[in-house]
């Protein structure tokens, strides 16, 4: 198994955090992982992205020009990264912020109303966990329980009061997809 993801959005949408959660969970399940951020001025306000690789084998380059999976939280990031997704890959986009219908050529596209659900839960900043929940529900890269347990390790301690609401967001994203496809 080898997954190469780009997770993108604007600064503040928590895309770096999504990547860390995924990498941490992969590590906990005994997989090889790398997390590579974009860094520098673009983190403040512009588009931000990170590359995550998860594999059963040793990972060579942590960079990725053509990911097999794109998790994308806003339109500028979609425009930048969608063309790079490899044929046969998949894209999960935040349909609350990218309202027009998206179709992919040779890629599997999934719409996740991440912000809508986050707002229902009362905090738009947890849209990222809705998206992550949806992704792992659909592709089963790592177990939901592992992701849940990673929150305490990846969130800085002063934010541990937010664990519950993040768990809720993960669950909503997860059940969104399992109810759509698996049930």
């Amino acid at each position, binding site marked *: 198994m080898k997954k190469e993801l780009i997770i993108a959005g604007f600064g503040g949408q928590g895309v770096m955090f999504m990547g860390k959660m995924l*990498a941490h969970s992969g590590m906990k399940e005994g997989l090889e992982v790398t*997390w*590579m*951020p974009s*860094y*520098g001025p673009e983190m403040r306000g512009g588009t931000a992205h990170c590359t995550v690789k998860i594999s059963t084998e040793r990972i*060579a380059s942590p960079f990725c*020009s053509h990911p097999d999976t794109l998790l994308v939280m806003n339109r500028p990031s979609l425009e930048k990264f969608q063309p790079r997704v490899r044929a046969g890959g998949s894209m999960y986009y935040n349909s609350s912020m990218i309202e027009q219908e998206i179709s992919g050529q040779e890629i599997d596209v999934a719409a996740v109303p991440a912000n809508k659900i986050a707002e229902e839960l009362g905090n738009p900043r947890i849209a990222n966990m809705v998206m992550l929940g949806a992704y792992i529900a659909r592709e089963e890269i790592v177990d939901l329980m592992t992701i849940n347990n990673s929150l305490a390790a990846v969130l800085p301690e002063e934010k541990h009061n937010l664990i519950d609401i993040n768990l809720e967001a993960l669950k909503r994203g997860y059940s969104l997809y399992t109810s759509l496809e698996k049930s």
Partner: protein
Amino acid sequence: MGEKKLMKGNEAIAEAAIRAGCRYFFGYPITPQNEIPAYMSRRLPEEGGVFLQAESEVAASNMVYGAAGAGARVMTSSSSPGISLKAEGISYIAAAELPCVIVNMMRGGPGLGGIEPSQSDYFQATKGMAHGNFHLLVMAPSSVQEGVDLMSQAFDLADKYRGPVMLLGDGMIGQMMEPVEFPEKIDPTELPPKEWATDGARGREKNVINSLYLDPDVLENLNWKLQEKYEQMQREDVKYEEYHMEDAVVAVIAYGTAARIALDAVQAAREDGIRVGLIRPITLFPFPEQVIARASAQVDAFLTTELSTGQMVEDVRLAVKGRTPVFFHGRPGGNMLTPEELLEEIKKIRGEVQ
């Protein structure tokens, strides 16, 4: 070894330094290494150590000189333009034979350059860096775990040779997160005493930490003594790794970040049936010249790849001594090398030498 943790290279390297007994850090902010001073400012006071943000890189490297001369395990970190400023202090540190560790998380240059990963300071790191005949022992990790492992050895090597040791990474090594395990903490108070240090001449002759030798014979002796150390490093402390070299007809040579990308290309080439191997220097000074010289009898061609316009390739050519063609493919940093372009180069070279 404890539990695996997912950590950024910069923070993991800082923690490894603390576990290796480093208790003093003097630095100055510059991207992409800012997590190192931030981590040290948080952790060192917990360990009874000192973190100090200096007024400049010049001052920071001279604070390191003072603290190293005073007998401490001390380090600094910076990125390319900052290392240029630290070069003054490092020359004095080398001349006064003081052990310390310097981290350079390289970014693109020249000048202010960029902040993205680059390997364009190879010459600066391995060819003496500043005025005078001296070298640093330079080690280049290509993963976060290796950054930790090399940092764990760096202070011992600095003590062994009584000189500066550099950990040469780049924005990728510093910013990337990977799982790491740490060695046990050592207690710096249990290290062998440094009889030469300036800690107050209590009941002994005075110690002088100095780099001024107005007597040409004394200066010449110091220079030859330093050269002997560099020869000893070449005999005892060369580190490298080889992949798929058993049957290789083309050898890719790359270090650090470039080696990670090259490994993808090597694997892809193998899948296409091309017998390619990779030699990854871990110490850049001392350079693994013997393994490359040996490989030159085996392979039809070398491909050196770097995030630079071609710096390490000069050392490869010196090691190969013209016996085998040496090709180069690089990007000067910022824009990343890709496995795809390297695969293409490998195929081209395979075609040319056949």
